[in-house]
């Protein structure tokens, strides 16, 4: 007598689309989809009709034409004779550069501040609280402008390094901190330098392997193997040895004041530094709160249990609290990374040529192709944001609670 619970078989009737709960939701979803497509179709055709009435069209031909303008910060080869597409790529790389560097610093500052904000030291605790509240509650554009203005006004300009009565001088003879940006010595890789670089990479792998071995020893045999000094040794010794064996193939190109500006070395522009710094400390304030929330989400019993096992406070944080807290921290951290990437479009406020400045700024202006460039910009930011989400979700899956 089990047939009673079986659903009635066969006989699909059209009325079931409305009356049967199994199909009803599909019906409504289908209607909603049609309505959505129709709405977008209407907007699209409206746009095309209005553009036609104004004698304009949608065309991406301009991407292949010479851009005609120069860009100061270029990570790839670019001249004013390159195409608009190339200019957009230069801008895209600049956006990615600022986003990656700002995410890196924001994470470090955020984690440190978040942990310190839980400190029992009253002064440290309150100072971090003030930092978080100030930076979280003032718009990031204001921070970018303030930092740029202070940067330009406070640091000496290259002209102050000039002449016999120069009021500013280079630090250690090789670093110049000017209102136009920072100049560092640049390593020049001569012949044979590849071997040195490869040695360095090999020693990094060696350090990783050694630490793995030490962990294995600890887990399998309960033996503590010292890791700190061997790691430091592995880090420096082989590379330095190889450097001298190969006859010092890597030299430094020092910046020097020539004409109007410092020439040579690595030049980090004031706009890049101000933008990265502003985005980092602004977003770090949010990350600090995420970190604090994550740590507070771990019950105090865990800390007490770890302490009763004899772990030192630093180890409790590293081995017990943070690994568990990461599960709570990572999802909001993803959205902070997305925020940094999107906020980097404020770059034009300080004249940093990101993709909004090249494709969405000068190219848009010179070609007048507003709709086309804005669509491209939207696609770019969408793709970047989704990629960041995807990567971070993979990481999130790797640290989240494994249910066995």
């Amino acid at each position: 007598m089990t047939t009673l619970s079986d659903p009635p078989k066969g006989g699909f009737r059209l009325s079931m689309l409305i009356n049967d709960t199994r199909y009803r939701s599909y019906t409504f979803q289908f209607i909603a989809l049609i309505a959505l497509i129709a709405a977008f179709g209407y907007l699209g055709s409206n746009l095309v009709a209005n553009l036609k009435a104004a004698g304009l069209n949608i065309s991406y031909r301009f991407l292949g034409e010479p851009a005609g303008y120069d860009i100061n910060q270029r990570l790839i080869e670019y001249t004013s004779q390159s195409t608009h597409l190339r200019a957009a790529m230069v801008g895209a790389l600049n956006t990615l550069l600022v986003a990656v560097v700002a995410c890196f610093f924001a994470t470090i500052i955020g984690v440190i501040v978040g942990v310190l904000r839980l400190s029992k030291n009253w002064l440290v605790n309150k100072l971090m609280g003030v930092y978080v509240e100030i930076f979280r509650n003032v718009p990031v554009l204001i921070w970018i402008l303030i930092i740029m203005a202070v940067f330009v006004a406070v640091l000496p300009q290259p002209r102050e390094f000039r002449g016999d009565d120069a009021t500013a001088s280079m630090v250690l003879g090789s670093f110049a901190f000017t209102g136009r940006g920072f100049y560092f010595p640049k390593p020049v890789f001569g012949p044979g330098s590849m071997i040195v670089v490869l040695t360095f990479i090999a020693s990094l792998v060696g350090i990783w392997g050694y630490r793995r071995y030490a962990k294995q020893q600890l887990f399998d045999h309960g033996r503590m193997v010292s890791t700190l000094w061997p790691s430091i040794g592995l880090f420096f010794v082989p590379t330095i040895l190889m450097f001298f064996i190969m006859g010092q193939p890597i030299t430094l190109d020092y910046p020097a004041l020539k004409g109007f500006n410092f020439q040579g070395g690595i030049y980090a522009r004031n706009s890049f530094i101000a933008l990265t710094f502003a985005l980092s400390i602004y977003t770090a304030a949010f990350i600090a709160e995420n970190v604090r929330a994550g740590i507070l989400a771990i019950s105090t019993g865990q800390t007490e249990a770890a302490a009763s096992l004899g772990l030192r406070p630093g180890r409790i944080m590293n081995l017990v609290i943070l690994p568990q807290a990461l599960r709570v921290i990572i999802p909001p951290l993803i959205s902070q990374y997305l925020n940094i990437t999107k906020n980097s479009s404020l770059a034009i406020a300080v004249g940093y040529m990101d993709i909004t400045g090249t494709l969405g700024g000068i190219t848009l202006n010179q070609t007048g192709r507003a709709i086309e460039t804005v669509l491209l910009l939207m696609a770019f930011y969408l793709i970047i944001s989704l990629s960041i989400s995807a990567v971070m979700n993979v990481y999130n899956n790797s640290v989240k609670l494994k249910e066995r």
Partner: protein
Amino acid sequence: MKKSVFFGAMTVAALAAGAAAAGTLDDVKARGKLNCGVTTGLVGFAAPDANGEWQGFDVGVCRAVAAAVLGDPSAVEFVPTTGKTRFTALASGEIDMLARNTTWTFSRDVDLKFEFVGVNYYDGQGFMVPKALGVSSAKELDGATVCIQTGTTTELNLADYFRTNNISYEPVPIETNAEAQPLYLEGACDVYTTDASGLAATRAAFENPGDHVVLPEIISKEPLGPLVRHGDSEWGDVVRWSLNALIAAEELGVTSANIGEMSMAAGDNPEINRLLGTEGTLGEMLGLSADWAKNAIMAGGNYGEIFEKNIGENTPIGLGRGLNAQWTDGGLLYVPPFR
């Protein structure tokens, strides 16, 4: 539900944009106000004074058009636009005309579908440097850091000039003139480049204008003029001939001082009579009142008066007439006859 409201709003917005394509002249008359796009603030050309009243050379053109169409030079809504937003503002119908020292170029005229109605200032791109640098020619600027206003023809001219002269430079793009000033004064850039008139105006606003020099090189032709949307020739004619009326008035010796007397009755000069509406039906042909040109000239005086008052040699900006003199004085100002 939320989505449908959103789409409804989008549809309304799209329809409203479509409606703006009707005759601009009728729109302006019905509105009783002229929406005129100007700069966000460039002393001498368009900037609010201490009382918040917009003053300047470009503002004078806006007021003349408003006076010609509406009979009231104050019936203008000034819309500040940046180099980036100006064309979108005009194309979308947010403004009726743009008088924002905008260079007349082929692609703007043809590809962007605008109509330049004339030239109110013949300009060229120049360079300004601090005197202390000891630079006397733009060719000595190898390796210099150059501040440019982004979204203008200047950055293209700059790239071309430095490339053809085979010298390097570091461009620093700046959104507005106001943002460029502190960067230049603090020394974050060695050179500031824009139209020579803009340089003079910017320098006039400095604390010590004498510490800065404008280099002799003029690297481009920059005919600046008001523009309107393509495809509305009636409105284009109104703006064009309002500007022409100002220039013709100077040529014919009609000033704000003697215009009251001259427009009372037809005089000896038939062209003045036609211009001021005491003879013929020029105003009617434009769809305006007979005294349209009289109103336009009374708004701020003729071209020469507006020039002298805002950017002339006796103002802090101190620009000479140069190319902007009447053709009879060796300049380029030459308007077609009023007949």
